[in-house]
């Protein structure tokens, strides 16, 4: 598998984003959120996107998810241009408190998308059970989301995404609103699920350490109007643990490197030769 090579051939691409541009226009003003974003994610890769606040991370993710029409460029998933939310994609949103249906139990929340897929009942029961077990919520089937802690709610949202059996899993700062301890657990959960399911993961975060710890590659975004500053290959051992990985010298190096870039981004770094446009 040559997933680590950022310039991997197009044929191996699971997700191909080319020249993506997003301009918001309304009430006489136009705001250029994303100028030109191009990258490729190979099948089975775990890629993190990190950027300073105001880097248009959520806008970028929504364009990729087909939730927002881009103003230019294209998003191609498994050879198919994305024009709306594609069936092979699942999204985990940042606001866990608002992304689960409060009138449904945990089981119903996870099962609803599977019903829409018209899966037979036996298969649904199996997928829901497996997914909730995978996120350690096997005994929460009958609970309502608001009866659970924030971290547990986000695990339900992850279980819903996993049960959907997507080829690509998009995550939009999923752990931004949970406490540090829970966040570490959830990060390890994502690594575990990724190993087990061989799903392609695109993980958006503002947390540099999180990006380096989780990713096989880290894409660093500039400040808006967004371009990609750098595509960093994370050459850390595949087996990661909160304690050991984070104390590796290489981890610090990578963290420093990404940190320096983010600082540049905050100071308004622009790609060379851009001033012409």
């Amino acid at each position, binding site marked *: 598998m040559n997933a680590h090579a950022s310039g991997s051939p197009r044929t191996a691409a699971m997700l191909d984003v080319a020249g993506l541009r997003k301009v918001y226009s309304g009430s006489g003003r136009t705001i250029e959120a994303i100028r030109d974003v191009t990258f490729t994610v190979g099948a089975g890769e775990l890629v993190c996107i990190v950027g300073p606040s105001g880097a248009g991370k959520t806008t970028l993710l*929504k364009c990729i*998810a087909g*939730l927002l029409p881009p103003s230019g460029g294209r998003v191609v998933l498994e050879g198919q241009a994305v024009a*709306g*939310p594609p*069936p092979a*994609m*699942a*999204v985990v*949103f940042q*606001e866990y408190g*608002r*992304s689960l*249906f*409060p*009138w*449904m139990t945990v089981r119903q929340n996870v099962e*609803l*998308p599977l*019903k*829409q*897929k018209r899966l037979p009942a036996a298969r649904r029961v199996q997928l829901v059970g497996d997914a909730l077990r995978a996120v350690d919520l096997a005994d929460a089937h009958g609970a*309502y989301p*608001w*009866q659970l802690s924030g971290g547990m709610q986000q695990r339900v949202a992850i279980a*819903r995404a996993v049960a*959907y059996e997507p080829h690509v899993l998009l995550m939009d700062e999923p752990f931004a609103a949970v406490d540090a301890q829970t966040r570490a657990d959830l990060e390890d959960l994502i690594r575990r699920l990724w190993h087990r399911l061989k799903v392609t993961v695109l993980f958006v975060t503002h947390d540099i350490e999180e990006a380096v710890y989780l990713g096989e590659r880290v894409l660093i975004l500039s400040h808006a109007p967004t371009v990609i500053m750098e595509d960093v290959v994370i050459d850390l051992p595949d087996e990661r643990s909160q304690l050991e990985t984070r104390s590796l010298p290489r981890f610090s190096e990578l963290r420093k490197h990404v940190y320096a870039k983010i600082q540049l981004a905050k100071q308004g770094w622009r790609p060379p030769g851009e001033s012409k446009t």
Partner: protein
Amino acid sequence: MKGGQTLRQAGLALGLPAALLATWWIASSGSANFYFPPLQTIAQTFVEVWVSPRLLDDVVPSLARLAAGYFGAVVLGLLIGIPIGLSRALRNTLEPVLEFLRAIPPPALVPILILFAGIGDTMKTLVIVSGCIWPVLLNTVEGVRGRDEVLEDVTRCYRIRGFARLWHFVIPSASPQMFTGLRQALSIGIILMVISEMFAASNGLGFAIIQFERSFAVAEMWTGIIMLGLIGIGLAQVFRLVERRMLAWYHGLRQSQRAGG
């Protein structure tokens, strides 16, 4: 602990009505005023008047009209309100018209409705519909319009569409506001039920009260008014039970938000 609390709440809830009744009872006990007979007389008359075939002849037709008008208004209000809440274009087009129609007091429609629908049950039901529909419709529009954007993205991302989207997302997320409308509509419905029966009717509670008044059966008239109050309380209790059940998730959610924040 919990039992004691419930008892205290019940005591508080019933205390004032009991005190008011006692005051009425004592103040009116020796009353010789023709228009304000002693409450004791009214209570005795109540049993005579309402524990009788009159219960079937007047109360049941009233409740049947109320039910027909109320549920008709609910169905119409939801059927019209949901599409308006979903579409900004529809809202912009219809809002001025709706504001105008809502501003018309339903009793003013009675003469017109008599022209079209005669003086029978259809007219009375239509009067109730014409008043009850507004709170249901307008609250449904607001509720549907105010649905959460994140959940909207979730339904799109997981391709929950068409009827499933309505049933599992749009209607439940609007339901707390819908229930606000349903509650307002219920009290409006009771008022209109009585008013509609005061025009050209041959039975019903409103008719009975007017009849008693015109035949100077003052104690009987008072019993009719008390009957209306009791029906109002009863229906409100039934409504609360249904709401508690249907919106159990909402009350739970609110409680957890209060505890957390």
